[in-house]
């Protein structure tokens, strides 16, 4: 049931019809320097929805995330959040509108302690929200154990958790997660996905990039497949999982 990417995304399986759209990306062109990576990317996330982006290496998944967060060079199209045009805004503004972002690499402050990292998560607030921090510690007990350790000396997986924790400090409406399970031990992968489910169930919309595509698609509401900087497929997670072509080309059979 493969459908042409663009028509699919824009006319989008009844997607256009819903009126509770949270994030709407239209015809986005973006890149680095004068190198264009994304061409006409469309993407929607609705209130409380759980959306996954999959695709081959170098497809532009991370770039899409970064573009939403104002970290790339904008070359065309627009990004709207809660009916507000946030195209080309700076990250420090975007965080105020209620988007949290966990980047793929380098996502902790290495010489700050774990606790300080979490505090930085709530930087834009006047005071560190103690309950939010408590909630993060509940979710990731290892962080409490290591709260005075410098983040840079933690293992790859531990850092990933810390980065998640930090993004949760502000209780955002939309959380952008770039490969949150990368480098996590299997139990933690499960746990991480469970946590994401929990977060999602608590009302936070999720836009996630994952290479652990099968698991991600299984759990999400809707999935996008990106390739070559363009939309290629869009459908519910399960539908994508069942699509023979998608399996063959992107999910390793």
């Amino acid at each position: 049931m493969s459908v042409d990417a663009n028509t699919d995304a824009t006319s989008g399986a009844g997607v256009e019809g819903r009126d509770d759209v949270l994030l709407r990306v239209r015809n986005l062109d973006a890149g680095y320097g004068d190198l264009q990576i994304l061409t006409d990317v469309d993407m929607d996330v609705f209130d409380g929805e759980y959306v996954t982006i999959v695709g081959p290496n170098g497809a532009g998944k991370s770039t899409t995330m970064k573009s939403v967060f104002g970290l790339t060079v904008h070359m065309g199209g627009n990004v709207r959040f809660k009916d507000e045009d946030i195209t080309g805004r700076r990250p420090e503004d975007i965080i105020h509108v209620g988007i949290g972002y966990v980047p793929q690499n380098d996502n902790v402050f290495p010489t700050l302690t774990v606790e300080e990292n979490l505090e930085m998560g709530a930087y834009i607030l006047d005071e560190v929200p103690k309950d939010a921090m408590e909630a993060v510690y509940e979710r990731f007990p290892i962080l409490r154990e290591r709260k005075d350790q410098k983040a840079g000396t933690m293992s790859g997986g531990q850092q990933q958790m810390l980065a998640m924790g930090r993004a949760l400090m502000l209780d955002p409406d939309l959380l952008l997660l770039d490969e949150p399970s990368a480098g996590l031990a299997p139990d933690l992968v499960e746990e991480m996905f469970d946590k994401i489910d929990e977060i999602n169930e608590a009302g936070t919309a999720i836009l996630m990039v994952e290479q652990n595509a099968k698991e991600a698609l299984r759990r999400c509401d809707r999935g996008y497949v990106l390739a070559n900087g363009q939309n290629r497929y869009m459908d519910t997670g399960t539908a994508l999982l069942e699509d023979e072509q998608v399996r063959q080309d992107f999910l390793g059979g």
Partner: protein
Amino acid sequence: MSVRDDFTDRIPGGDAGLIVLVLLATYLAYVLAGFVLGYTLRGQLNSIATLTFYIGVFAMLSLALNLHWGYTGLFNIGIVGFMAVGVYVTAIVTKPTYVAGGAAQVGGLGLPLWVGILAGMLAAALLGLVVALPALRLRADYLAIVTIAMSEIVRFSFLSGELQQFQLFGNRVGFGGGSGLILDFAPPLEALLRGVGLWDAYLGFVDAFQVVVPRNPKPVVDGLIYGLLLLGFVAAFYWLLKRTGESPFGRVLKAIREDEDVANALGKNTDRFKIKSFMLGCALMGLAGILWLVPQGAVTPNFFRPRVTFFVWIALIIGGAGSNTGSVLGGAVFAAVLYQGPRYFQNLVTAVFPNLDSPSGFGQAISPLISQFDPVPFLLYTVDSIRQLQLVVMGLVLIWLMHNRPEGMLGYRKETASVIPLSRPKSMTADGGDDDSVRTDGGVDAAAEGGETDE
């Protein structure tokens, strides 16, 4: 993505052509300036010789620096230190032995100049080793600070009264303290020509030159030939460094510049490579220092202020770090425009508008401008202070380059670090993948094909 399409692509003869072109343009400009200044033929030749001299010196130095910074990523801002050691050691080895009552306060070992030059280079390389052994593990900016501090330590040592004179192999030698050393031995050109037995022929040539410059042509010819000699050295440096760069050795240096751990993990003894590269560069800096200062006949420690180091850096950055062609070009442009240019400019202004009295201070210069909008005194003062402003201009040029053309005048040059071009060898069948498709990845490719077949 690939080599930037540049005006340079259209110059016949490629890089060498470009260099020649720039040199020709420079000389033309200087000859014209000399013409306006009313130089005689002798004056023209002398000014060309001086220009060539500085072009040669700066080109050599920026080539040597390019080996450090462009190739190996070693941020050396102690260049003058290595130059100083090169010159001083050469002096001590070559100066005639001490005789009481001579002009020179101290003597030397009285060995031939070539021994002195080798010793000087060796000493610079050894100083490089001493700095390198412990310091190469440091971050680039720390290495920078260590090297500049080292160059100051070297200068202070040569300045110090304690090392003013001492005994070496029973000879009275020394660094001469603040008054420096008189280099009372045959200048390099003479030594070279005598060495190859061409001295008399040369003198004959000088005499013949009287046709062009009737009176005392020797210094003019000396200057010109020495300039040529320096250009020869530049060519040799260029050749040496180009081959060094375009080789597996250069490849490892480049890798070290990017990420030392990786090179190490791939089995390269990075310390050894770095030390070799550093020492080679230092020796070349020493040699450049020798060729610069030995013909001056005297050397004082205060010549070796950090400023000169920054001159070389500016030259390199103008041309573009990482590129040998760029280094030569940067050296030439720096010498011609920024180093020698302002003096000519000033002389031109005074030649065109003679008898202008410029104000003696900023105050007198600026007050007419403020009180009666009379900019003339200010402009005069500006022209008069061009030596100071020259350094301001250098600073601004540096800033401008870093903003607009951090890769240097030539734009980005891809000088591939290998002996051969790295395109797919003919012998291999081009089974897909080597065409210039815009695909970003194999995975995408597979997907794209999948998508197409589906339609």
